[in-house]
């Protein structure tokens, strides 16, 4: 069993959850990973202060796609205020695999685009306390 390419990572990569389009949405954003040119967009529907629905669009490596898929399952139903403040630690813990420094941006691209959509701010998510 590979440390990085675990069964659940490959399963999310091959069958990503919540990928597609939400033509009617409240927020959207689009981000590029400058290292590799991978692109990821997100569309978000808000209801009663929570993320009622969310879809990602784009393509990327197994790490970035699995991260987006796994994050989407947590994000739908989450309070907007909480989702807007999630940090890198949250994403890396959710992924549960050892992510090297060079693949960190792959792992964090989905969180970056969600934060961009919710807050208008497009910087890379930092670690807690950073």
């Amino acid at each position, binding site marked *: 069993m590979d440390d990085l390419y675990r069964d659940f990572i*490959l399963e999310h990569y*091959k069958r990503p959850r919540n990928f597609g389009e939400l033509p009617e949405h409240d927020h959207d954003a689009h981000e590029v990973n400058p290292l590799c*040119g*991978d692109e990821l967009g997100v569309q978000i529907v808000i209801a009663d202060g929570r993320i009622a629905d969310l879809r990602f669009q784009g393509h990327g*490596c197994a790490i970035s796609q699995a991260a987006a898929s796994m994050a989407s399952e947590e994000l739908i139903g989450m309070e907007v205020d909480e989702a807007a403040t999630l940090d890198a630690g949250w994403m890396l813990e959710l992924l549960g695999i050892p992510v090297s420094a060079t693949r960190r941006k*792959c792992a964090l691209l989905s969180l970056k685009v969600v934060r961009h959509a919710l807050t208008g701010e497009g910087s890379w998510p930092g670690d807690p306390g950073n």
Partner: protein
Amino acid sequence: MKHVVCRTSEEPCQECLVGFGAEKIREDFPILWTKVHGKPLVYLDNAATTQKPQAVLDTLMRYYTEENSNVHRGVHFLSQVATQSYESGRTRVRQFLNASHDREIIFTRGATEGINLVAQSYGRKHLRAGDEVIVSAMEHHSNIVPWQQAAAATGAQLRYLEVADDGTLSLEQLDAELARGDVALVALTHVSNVLGTINPVAEIVHRAHDAGALALIDGAQAVPQLEVDLTAIDADFYAWTGHKALGPTGVGVLHARAELLEQMPPFLSGGDMIATVEAQSSSWNELPWKFEAGTSMIAQVVGLGAAIDYLDALGMANIRAHEHALTAYTLERLSATDGVSLFGPPSAEHRGGVVSFALEGIHPHDVAELLSRSNVCIRASHHCAQPLMRRLGVVATARASFGPYNVAADVDALIEAIERAQEVFEG
């Protein structure tokens, strides 16, 4: 110690692979002796940078321990030795590439800086609104972005030669563009860093000149693996870099016609590039030093001279034959591997030692990560060629690229590692 090897075979030629003596050459590269996780390093990222032979490392150490000093205005003996070493590096470059004059050779930080020098110094002074600069869709960003900047500053237009499905440029399209009569400059790569395509640069330069246009050739990938004859190519500007040719990082070369350099304003200014400095104005040093402001990369130029000596001893024709055979072997092995698609010219005949490929269902970054588990170093990236990636319909490719020290066993290790990567993703 020139080897006699087959230079024509289109088939993977065992004689070229073995007769070249790459196994022996590997002994000259200390990094290739190192083992990672008990296994040897399989270095197939030579289009990004090459490893350095002991002779280059020794030369750098000898320079710093025995000759280190600043050049040109020193009267003391050390400065004279350093100046002699630095300037003989220039002469060595001229001989190696059959260039005409030392004063037409400018040391830069790399190919990128060389192209920037031309785009900013020549481009901003001489380009006019309505002029066209022809590049191609297979250029590295270093031969696109400086022209975008020069075009934005002058009102000139950037136009692209298309890349055919077989990875070649169309000379007919070049002729059609040139026939419009407003092309000021053609800026094309000699060898594509993604597709490996070897462009017919002498013919391209000839056609550009016939149409009254200048020609710049990006030789970053060509100099390390081809016999480059700058007199035969006759480009107005030819830029390349040392670190892809077994030399140190931080040194590149721009070859340029003296009459153009004389008309061009300095690129960087400061020490060493002046004749006299008055309170409000200055006059410029003669060529090539007019374009070498500040303390030069002295050790790197001396190291580059050692790299050239090393390449020359192997013989560029032999290196080309060896990498041609390796590339043909790689194309054959990859074509026979399930789930692999290839980019670029189908035959190794018109291709440098670069093979870009994709694995079905596996992103190039994941390919590179999994290959790295087997100590196989390849690059997975847009390779600083995003317009080409768009043309190919991908965001990135996986790329294996060769140096003189690569052997058929490296290609076998690549194939094995690819098969292991596919098992992980199928698992």
